[in-house]
């Protein structure tokens, strides 16, 4: 019995050593087994980290922000106005949460703090009452660290545990933090640049504007209603931490509320949206951070929406240019 088990043990050591070495070198050689299944959102962040030029403007948020801002449009518009090169990035990703925003300022911006950091301040980031709030599966899959997992595994949702273990040992995050032991999410090959601002243009951005109707979007009603009245202290702490880090790095933090489709408004629980707005304004005042609530300021045409919260390409183009004008004063500051 012993020779067989001994062989198996020694063999396994060989397998482990080679996989560990490949995994640890993977990031260095830009080497992946196959496409990371995140529609390229994480690839954009990876490219951001590799970019030598410091970023002037970084947007962050959920899919709403991802669909609302076209970095190339913002860049061209600002360059015309400022008469100098401008680096613009949209690092928003679907299902983003405040703790992911916190991860970004702590890790992604560590060596590359942007000049201006615009975070989506619509309810869908801070108070979406989603199934994946407050402990987001996205966070556990891609961003949490081993220590996070070890400290919080007792309180995290059971269904997030496999994702978390997978992400630490096998996922793209393991590659970034060079802590992975095994990896199967690798691929090689160039990543074609897309005009939509990321390396990959998510499929949802390619859709044409749809005629919107409340009755036709039950899924939206289910997933994205604003429901909670007592916004979490954890999120307040996240926002505070983000503001502190930004202040320390001389990054101007701006909270931006892109307007959602007005027909969504009646779907919110009574009083919830106002409570949220008050909460956000109160925090912004305390942290001395601008809160640009565009829900009551501007109104996009219905054809500019793809659904209740995501913009169609025409809407994103228009909104991107509008935001440029809002952000110019901050970029003009020394």
């Amino acid at each position, binding site marked *: 019995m012993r020779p067989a088990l001994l062989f198996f043990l*020694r*063999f396994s050591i060989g397998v482990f050593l080679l996989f560990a070495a490949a995994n640890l070198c993977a990031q260095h050689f830009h080497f992946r087994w196959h496409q990371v299944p995140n529609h390229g959102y994480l690839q954009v962040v990876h490219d951001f980290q590799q970019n030598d030029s410091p970023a002037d403007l970084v947007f962050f948020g959920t899919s709403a922000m991802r669909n609302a801002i076209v970095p190339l449009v913002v860049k061209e518009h600002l360059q015309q106005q400022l008469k100098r090169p401008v680096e613009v990035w949209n690092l928003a990703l679907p299902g983003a949460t405040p703790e992911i925003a916190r991860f970004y300022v702590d890790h992604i911006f560590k060596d590359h703090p942007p000049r201006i950091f615009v975070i989506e301040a619509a309810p869908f980031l801070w108070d979406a009452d989603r199934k994946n709030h407050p402990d987001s599966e996205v966070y556990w899959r891609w961003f949490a660290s081993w220590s996070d997992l070890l400290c919080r595994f007792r309180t995290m949702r059971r269904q997030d545990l496999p994702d978390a273990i997978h992400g630490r040992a096998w996922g793209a995050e393991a590659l970034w933090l060079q802590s992975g032991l095994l990896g199967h999410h690798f691929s090689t090959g160039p990543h074609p640049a897309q005009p939509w601002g990321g390396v990959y243009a998510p499929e949802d951005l390619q859709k044409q504007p749809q005629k919107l109707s409340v009755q036709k979007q039950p899924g939206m009603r289910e997933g994205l209603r604003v429901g909670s009245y007592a916004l979490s202290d954890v999120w307040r702490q996240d926002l505070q931490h983000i503001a502190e880090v930004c202040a320390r790095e001389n990054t101007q933090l701006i909270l931006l509320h892109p307007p959602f489709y007005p027909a969504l408004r009646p779907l919110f629980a009574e009083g919830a949206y106002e409570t949220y707005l008050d909460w956000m304004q109160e925090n912004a005042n305390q942290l001395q951070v601008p809160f640009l609530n565009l829900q009551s300021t501007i109104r996009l045409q219905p054809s500019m929406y793809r659904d209740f919260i995501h913009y169609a390409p025409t809407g994103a183009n228009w909104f991107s240019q509008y935001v440029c004008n809002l952000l110019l004063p901050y970029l003009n500051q020394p």
Partner: protein
Amino acid sequence: MVFNSIVFLLFFPSVFVGNTLLARWPVVRKSFLLAASYFFYAQWDYRFLFLIWLSTLVDWFVGSALGREQRPHARKYWLWFSLGVNFGLLATFKYLGFFVDSANALLETIGLHGNLPSLRLILPVGISFYTFQTLSYTLDIYFRKAKPHHSALDFALFVGFFPQLVAGPIVRARDFLPQLAKNPLPKREDLSLGVYHVLSGLFKKVVIADLLGHDLAQPFYSQPDHFGFFGAMSGIYGFAFQLFGDFAGYSQMATGFALMLGFRLPENFRNPFMARNNLEIWRRWHITLLTWMRDYIYIPLGGSRGSKAQTNRNILLTNLFSGIWHGAGWNFLLWGLVDGITICLSRAYQQMRKTAGFLPTPQDPSWMIWSQRFLTFHIWLLAMPIFRTRNLEHLSQVGRSLTRLHPTSTAAAIPSRGLLLLALALAMTIISEYQGPRIRRFWLQLAPELQGMACASLLGLCGLLTTEGSPFIYFQF
């Protein structure tokens, strides 16, 4: 669950550890292997376990009865009972649709309305393989080449042993049951060699077969009208090596896994494309099926003991049977017939050379050896489109593409990766023929850690190049 899947990567080490830890208790160990084998099979469809159990039970009891029964009539009835059940299973699940469709087509041809009902049954994976295995047990006992085995557990494990259950090699009871009785444990050399076979088979399947299928064979056979001569030939070559890589790869992996568990399976492929005549191809390709056909069909029919005409008849019948074994379709029958004809012609040619005192030897000049190999391979290759195509119309499209110098569509470009893989497959075949034993000796000398690294490298390469868990072609048989 296929061998080249992540799930199997978790399954096999568990079985290996269990097999090793339970080695001291043979009955427990074999029960564990049997349970693991049934679990493996149930991943396709647990309902078809009943068919394996039926085949196992029937042939176990028939074998016991044949061992006790001495009267020729009674023995014959028992044999027919076993044949009836096993071929009945095959006829029902594999051929019923074909028979009914053919009968309907025949009725239509003679002006009658063919409306016979047909059950569209799912083909149970591996049915052609395990029924032949159980039949080999009863036939050996009937022909008094073996005695009934004392252990039902051993017999059940012989039938259901997972490495060879779904796509061979077809194991003979008289070869495998004695191994089970001895309760063998894998030695260090067996483990190393087992890993070598698994990796080699995986490379053949995942890198050669799947990619050649994707790059050359599939594009050509799906649209033969688009291709000219060179594209057609690359598609035909591609399919030949795809079929070989797929099937030989699977067999080799099965051999490797069995070896790591302590059991030896028979060799199933021996570089068939290095054969110097068509007779020799069939001693190197799917060896276990061909030897089964030889022992249980060709020889009982009379073999080569009668006249030349009788021998040729026996060869044709055996090959027709081999053809229909591969699939329920007229193209398989035709393919079997064509193969039978080439074997008869090859035999006649060898006879002529023997009469002239000019038989091939290993000392023949290289140009002669290589030209014989070239010719043999291409004669065999020309029958491949019959095997691959769906019907006569499809076959004629393939034929027309061979007569066309230029492709008719820009979509018929031959990918360079496919041609490189073809060259690689050819190189591997040649290297394996001449340096195979040396490579194996070198491998056996490597430390297990280095073997593990080689395994990880290959798994990584497979992960880079392919998608996980692509099925094996011979599962459909």
